[in-house]
């Protein structure tokens, strides 16, 4: 053994996961085939709102290869099964039952009405066409403000309202700050803007799929999910399956981005049908089904009022949101806007803050988590209005930010929203970004192009963001009425030959946990990286966990791994001391070796583990194992931050936006694997830029999703995106032993306002102060040539409603 081993944490290790993924040796759920397995296909409503008078499945039952056809009456005759919502945000929140199949009414286009089970997926789909449903159309509720109008038809008649909940935070009431109304009444500058967060589709590449095998002692369900542990508990609660009789496996999962944090009706269907037939069943959706029925993200109208002194000092911020829930509540849907509630104040010292969000039902696909979940919405609004305020005050947007942000020497800092940011250095990140971007040079070029009336104008957009991630301290979740905790579990098994199995409750679906956790454990135990196997995503082998979302895996799950490793060392120390006939206090542990302090007498962790395995010579009363587990509940969120700068060239003759340069300097604290971190930033940027420029889920006036395929929904390709310049500053988090902060969502949260700020900056000279997202050529051209209101303004409707881009190019 070498005298010193280089630390694994911080190394750009290539990933262990890749070997199977680059050779096609993959275990996607849809790859699973079991003897006698039958296939499920779901008949979906073409109407967004309709009464079901009758469903005739007799012809379908007689089709070749069809084993069974089910309606709600067959699967849930009492009409009591409802998909779970784990986040009742207020005591009086309205919570309509979301059935596995619609019984007498459909509430969005795409809702399931009947299910066919057949020998092949093709036979099942064929039989769908033989089902006859008699619908009676009801008035369709679309658009947030329409839905709240006094005479609006109701999505759910029995609720008596389309209002789901009103959730309020006020700094004066909470004692965390002053009164916003006072700030509005007395400030020198009061700026009010309305922004629209269009509706997006998470669009993970692997369509959802689940396989249920009811033939063993436990029912086994494979599912393309981010949350196997939550799915198991929720499926048990929802369907009455004893929890110990259910095993859930998330095998290779092809992306999630929040879109696979859910308990889907189709998963319920598969469990119910498999039990009825006593046969394995599989359901795999088509891409169109994903687009239509898997939850969407964002979709808010944001009314923002910011107040300031003439010198640029912020005095107050008022945020009033309308958030579209869609037709039902997803697993955490109503809480998504709340995850932004504490982030609108961002990195700024704002003395007074008020946040109110009204959640609204419409006849659309439900919304829930999508990468960033609440925080991109918040960051967009504050970073957009900071640019607008800078214009109002005649200041450089970076100068205005710097005047108001928390200085690095002021940490820890308790914000007006009541969160305590543990660390950060906004000055350092901004300085680095400005250098890499050549901020001053681009400003000069911008001025030159303006002066010579260049048809291609240059815009510069800024976003200095922070986010809260590492969901989450359980007591905070409790105070927000969330239905679970925020801890994570890990276990370490020391095998007789010295190899190590690490069990984690985090459930990776592309993040690279197998690699990163191996690096952490290699350092903690002093074992080779190659000797560590990471096991996850199966409730049988990884029995405890709260899964992967909210940039929590490393900051919570990774720390649980550290805690488990510390316990392993502690147990091994006692045994090592016994073997070397010394006191445990005389031993130091480092680089995989216990050494008697001040001597060269030592033993390796592997030797201790083997001695523990044979158990021939252990101290009295010590059990023969060093295996350990730990459950870690974080004391605080972590607060990654960064400065993103975007230069956009806007062709005023065509409206085309081309990103000339994108620089981001992120501070995600200590880094376990820089290769993986950079990859996360790249992917996050792509998704955030896509919201700014490309993507939008659009419903027509009948509530039909018109962007229901990848031919209609503009997921950017390689040709649509630039290369990014990424760099990091490193201010370690002080709330966890690794100093890590989380990186999964940073790029998505930060980039959207940087891009839109750049677009608006380029064409502001034409009197433009906003372009609705996505800033398509049509919208940008309309803004330049028809003026501000023609740019779409904020419209009367939320994304996906009637205010979505229409034949007239978004013109009102």
């Amino acid at each position, binding site marked *: 053994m070498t005298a010193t081993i280089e630390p694994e944490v911080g190394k750009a290790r290539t990933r262990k996961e890749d070997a199977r993924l680059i050779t096609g040796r*993959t275990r996607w759920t849809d790859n699973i085939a079991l003897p006698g397995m039958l296939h499920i296909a779901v008949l979906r409503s073409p109407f967004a709102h309709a009464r079901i008078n009758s469903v005739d499945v007799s012809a379908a039952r007689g089709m070749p290869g069809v084993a069974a056809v089910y309606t709600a009456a067959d699967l849930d005759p009492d009409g009591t099964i409802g998909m779970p919502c784990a986040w009742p945000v207020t005591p009086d929140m309205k919570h309509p039952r979301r059935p596995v199949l619609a019984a007498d009414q459909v509430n969005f286009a795409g809702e399931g009405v009947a299910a066919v089970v057949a020998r092949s997926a*093709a036979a099942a789909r064929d039989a769908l066409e033989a089902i006859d449903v008699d619908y009676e159309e009801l008035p369709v509720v679309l658009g947030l403000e329409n839905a709240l109008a006094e005479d609006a038809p109701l999505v759910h008649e029995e609720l008596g309202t389309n209002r789901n909940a009103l959730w309020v935070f006020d700094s004066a009431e909470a004692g965390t700050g002053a009164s916003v109304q006072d700030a509005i009444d007395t400030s020198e500058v009061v700026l009010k803007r309305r922004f629209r967060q269009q509706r997006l589709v998470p669009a993970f590449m*692997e369509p959802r799929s689940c396989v249920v095998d009811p033939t063993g002692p436990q029912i086994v369900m494979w599912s393309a999910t981010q949350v196997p542990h939550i799915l198991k508990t929720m499926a048990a609660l929802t369907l009455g399956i004893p929890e110990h009789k259910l095993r859930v496996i998330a095998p290779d999962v*092809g*992306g999630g981005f929040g879109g696979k944090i859910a308990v889907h009706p189709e998963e319920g269907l598969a469990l119910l049908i498999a039990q009825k037939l006593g046969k394995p069943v599989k359901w795999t959706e088509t891409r169109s089904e994903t687009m239509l029925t898997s939850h969407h993200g964002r979709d808010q109208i944001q009314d923002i009022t910011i107040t300031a002194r003439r010198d640029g000092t912020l005095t107050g911020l008022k945020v009033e949101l309308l958030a579209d829930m869609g037709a039902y509540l997803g697993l955490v849907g109503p809480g998504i806007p709340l995850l932004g509630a504490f982030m609108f104040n961002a990195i700024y010292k704002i003395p007074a803050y008020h946040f109110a969000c009204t959640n609204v039902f419409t006849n659309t696909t439900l919304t829930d988590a999508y990468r960033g979940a609440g925080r991109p919405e918040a960051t967009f609004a504050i970073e957009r209005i900071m640019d607008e305020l800078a214009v109002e005050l005649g200041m450089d947007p970076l100068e205005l930010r710097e005047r108001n942000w928390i200085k690095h020497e002021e940490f820890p800092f308790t914000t007006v929203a009541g969160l305590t940011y543990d660390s950060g250095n906004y000055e350092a990140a901004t300085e680095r970004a400005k250098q890499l971007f050549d901020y001053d040079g681009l400003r000069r070029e911008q001025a030159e192009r303006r002066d010579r009336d260049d048809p291609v104008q240059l815009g510069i957009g800024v976003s200095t963001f922070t986010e809260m991630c590492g969901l989450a301290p359980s007591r905070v979740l409790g105070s927000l009425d969330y239905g679970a905790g925020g801890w994570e579990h890990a276990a370490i098994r020391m095998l007789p030959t010295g190899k190590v199995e690490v069990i984690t409750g985090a459930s990776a679906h592309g993040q690279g946990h197998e690699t990163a956790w191996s690096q952490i454990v290699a350092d903690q135990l002093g074992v080779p990286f190659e000797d560590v196997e990471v096991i996850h995503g199966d409730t049988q082998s990884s029995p405890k966990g709260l899964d992967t979302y909210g940039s929590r895996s490393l900051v919570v799950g990774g720390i649980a791994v550290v805690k488990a490793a510390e316990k392993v060392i502690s147990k091994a120390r006692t045994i090592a001391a016994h073997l070397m006939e010394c006191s445990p206090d005389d031993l130091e542990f480092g680089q995989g070796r216990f050494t008697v302090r001040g001597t060269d007498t030592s033993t390796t962790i592997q030797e201790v583990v083997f001695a523990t395995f044979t158990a021939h010579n252990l101290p009295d009363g010590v059990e023969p194992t060093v295996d350990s587990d730990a459950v870690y509940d974080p004391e605080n969120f972590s607060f990654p931050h960064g400065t993103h700068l975007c230069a956009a060239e806007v062709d005023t003759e065509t409206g085309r936006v081309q990103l000339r340069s994108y620089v981001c300097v992120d501070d995600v604290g200590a880094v376990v694997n820089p290769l*993986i971190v950079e990859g996360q930033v790249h992917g996050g940027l792509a998704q955030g830029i896509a919201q700014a420029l490309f993507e939008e889920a659009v419903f027509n006036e009948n509530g039909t999703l018109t962007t229901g395929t990848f031919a209609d929904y503009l997921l950017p390709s390689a040709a649509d995106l630039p290369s990014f310049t990424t760099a990091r500053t490193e201010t370690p988090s002080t709330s966890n032993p690794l100093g890590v902060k989380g990186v999964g969502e940073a790029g998505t949260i930060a980039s959207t306002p940087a891009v839109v700020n750049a677009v608006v900056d380029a064409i502001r000279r034409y009197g433009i102060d906003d372009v609705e997202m996505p800033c398509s050529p049509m919208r940008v051209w309309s803004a330049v040539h028809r003026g501000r209101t023609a740019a779409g303004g904020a419209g009367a409707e939320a994304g996906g409603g009637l205010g979505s881009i229409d034949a007239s190019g978004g013109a009102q």
Partner: protein
Amino acid sequence: MRITVTVDGTQYTDEVEPRTSLVHYLRETLGKVGTVIGCDTSNCGACTVHLDGHSVKSCSVLAVQADGCEVTTIEGLARDGRLHPVQQAFHDNHALQCGFCTPGMIMQSIDLLADDPDPDEKAIREGLEGNLCRCTGYQNIVRAVRDAADHMRPGAGPAAERVVSGEAAGKVPAGGE
């Protein structure tokens, strides 16, 4: 209908329905599940394979059209445990995260390099336009393809990994045997 197709070096003869697409034949009949389905409008490219040495989206080819043809999938690239240079480059450059688009992305990249062994960034981005990835933002994929091009340059690596000509790179993806 009866078809005979050679897939990854093995010849198969099967009865297929006329409507069966090549990707369904590969996955459901042959168990070649390394090739995946990501959409139903031939936009995503996840199902890309080589048909007689050229990339095709196997969701848009009927199995009967592949009768008498040679198909190479992601599963047929590595030989004797040795990765194809493009597979290796995807690993070395962290060009994948969830990995679902990866089989198609690799097959398309090989085809791209067969047409243009020395592509610049723009050519790579445009050559991969028909393959969607939601995880990586494409930057590392572009880097991987460029890296692979360098490794596959004549004389760049061991003889076994050399690409003799563009056409050969497509037809014999394992690298010139």
